[in-house]
């Protein structure tokens, strides 16, 4: 563990990412305390420019809602959807990859065909279709992102399981009469955890990008304030009110950047063999 922290710290980007993410998570968690009341509520006249007073430091939007409050509450949605949809993707991808890698043969063929299919289909277009048909809600958005993001997980897990399957300790476990589920769950998967963690941290970042893109198009949960929705709603008034599009976008970039930096550092720390050669 100490060794891990040491290697993680070696990459300054990871520390920057951790600090950034901690700040964003703190604001999102404290949103109800920082900005009591509903972020959808009109609190002032519309189009108050930013930095003109402490009351609305980031200005107000087209109908007089507090932009800063919207950002704080939007962070909750982005982080939550990012996290849960990644979990959903792992819940689909890990079993598919593990089964394909462990059993090989026809099962592998079949599962990999399905995986390839989902990789070929343009993922954002599929997410749009799923959310539109099942009506926009936090559940349909999370599921749609999970459904389009699992194939890389399945491929990664399959590769890991295939190589671990050849090891002698697995032969030993089979000879000992351990059941197949026990071997996969307790002997193989724990040894494949590090690359999965690295991939998952990067997937949270791309899930946040996907969520913001969906809500930008008006496919966000109609009851939840989100960064993508804020930009989408401000799109047509960009000439009059630049701040309405700028700030939520910066929030998305910082969050995604933080997660990407953390992911790369985790990669350096957990997979020293695979990490980029430093020159």
């Amino acid at each position, binding site marked *: 563990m100490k060794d891990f922290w040491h290697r993680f710290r070696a990459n300054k980007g990871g520390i920057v990412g951790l600090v950034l993410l901690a700040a964003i998570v703190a604001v999102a968690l404290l949103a109800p305390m920082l900005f009591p009341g509903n972020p959808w509520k009109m609190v002032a006249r519309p189009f108050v420019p930013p930095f003109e007073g402490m009351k609305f430091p980031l200005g107000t939007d087209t109908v007089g809602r507090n932009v800063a409050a919207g950002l704080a509450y939007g962070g909750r949605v982005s982080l939550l959807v990012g996290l849960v949809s990644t979990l959903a993707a792992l819940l689909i991808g890990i079993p598919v990859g593990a089964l394909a890698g462990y059993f090989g043969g026809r099962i592998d063929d079949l599962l990999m065909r399905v995986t390839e*299919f989902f*990789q*070929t*289909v*343009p*993922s*954002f*277009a*599929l997410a*749009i*279709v*799923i959310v*539109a*048909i*099942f*009506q926009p809600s936090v559940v349909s958005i999370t599921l749609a992102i999970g459904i389009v993001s699992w194939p890389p997980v399945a491929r990664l897990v399959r590769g890991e399981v295939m190589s671990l399957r050849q090891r002698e300790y697995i032969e030993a476990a089979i000879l000992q009469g351990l059941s197949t589920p026990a071997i996969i769950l307790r002997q193989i998967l724990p040894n494949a955890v590090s690359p999965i963690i690295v991939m998952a941290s990067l997937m949270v*970042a791309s899930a946040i*990008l996907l969520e*913001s*893109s969906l809500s*930008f*198009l*008006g*496919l966000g949960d109609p009851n939840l304030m989100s960064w*993508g929705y804020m*930009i*989408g709603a401000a*799109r047509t008034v*960009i*000439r009059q009110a*630049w701040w309405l*599009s*700028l700030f939520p*976008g910066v929030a*998305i*970039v*910082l969050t*995604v*950047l933080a997660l*990407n*930096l953390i992911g790369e550092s985790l990669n350096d720390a957990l997979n020293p063999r695979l990490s*980029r*050669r430093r*020159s």
Partner: protein
Amino acid sequence: MRGTTFMKIATRIAARLAKAAVVLLAILVLNFLLIHAAPGDPAVVMAGEAGATDDVFLAQLREKFGLDQPLYMQLGKYVWDVLHLDLGFSYRQQMPVFDLLMDRLPATLLLTGSAFAVSLILGVAAGVLAASRVGKWSDTLISTVALLFYATPLFWAALMGVLLFSVVLGWLPPFGYETVGSGFTGMRRALDIAQHLALPALSLGLFFMAVYSRMTRASMLEVAQLDFVKTARAKGLSRGVIERRHILRNALLPIVTLAGLQAGQLVGGAVLTETVFAWPGIGRLMFEALTQRDYNVLLGVFFVSAAMVIVFNLITDLIYGIVDPRIRAQ
């Protein structure tokens, strides 16, 4: 010898085509399942729900889809129709979906094609530059910018592009395909379209520009360690020649693989870019279908965009075979 190579390539293409056909068929089945999984009457779903439907039309739809027949019969009919280029009728636009799509497809092909070229050329160039100055400030700058682009949502990059280049600087038109009512022809018109195309293509290509530059840099640095490069150096070849002829050529192979992945991102991203720039392609059509709940059009766009990806993959696959002789030999 020639004949057998030709035969091999022909078999490869045939195998790929068969696979592509299976994938397309699977997408049709997926479309069909989605319509039936949607809450409510499939006929109402297909017609769009926002009140603009009348009973006669619904009855027509029910009859057309044979909604009283068993599910597999319905699926068969659906596939049969699509094979005859019948993707249904858009009640909102009063036009067959297929015609709508064909009207809009050229604009999207122009946009995605340009975005692909822009991202590939600029991305690889930036990656080569960064790799040849590894550790210097220009390398750090390129890598930092790539990291930022990598985290930027496409639609926001597009909006910020409009803000900077159209609103503040006034260099480029903020939206549209060409100047309406200008009456431009020939070269003048092409130039006008190119001006309108610049911002959308650049913002659509931004993400993969970052991907290509990071990949090219890493791949160049890796190849530079290999023995054959050392040999080339020992032979006394100049740095530039080694970089171009020895390193870059080999470093480009993983880039071709990535290009296949980009196709999906491009057609998906086109929905966002075309929405921001009012670009009259199938992406904008998808956005319109969303706001009008025109599910027939929505699924039509999904099908065509998937088909575009498949065709693109087929092409990169063939290119890969040409670039890498090891694959041709298999």
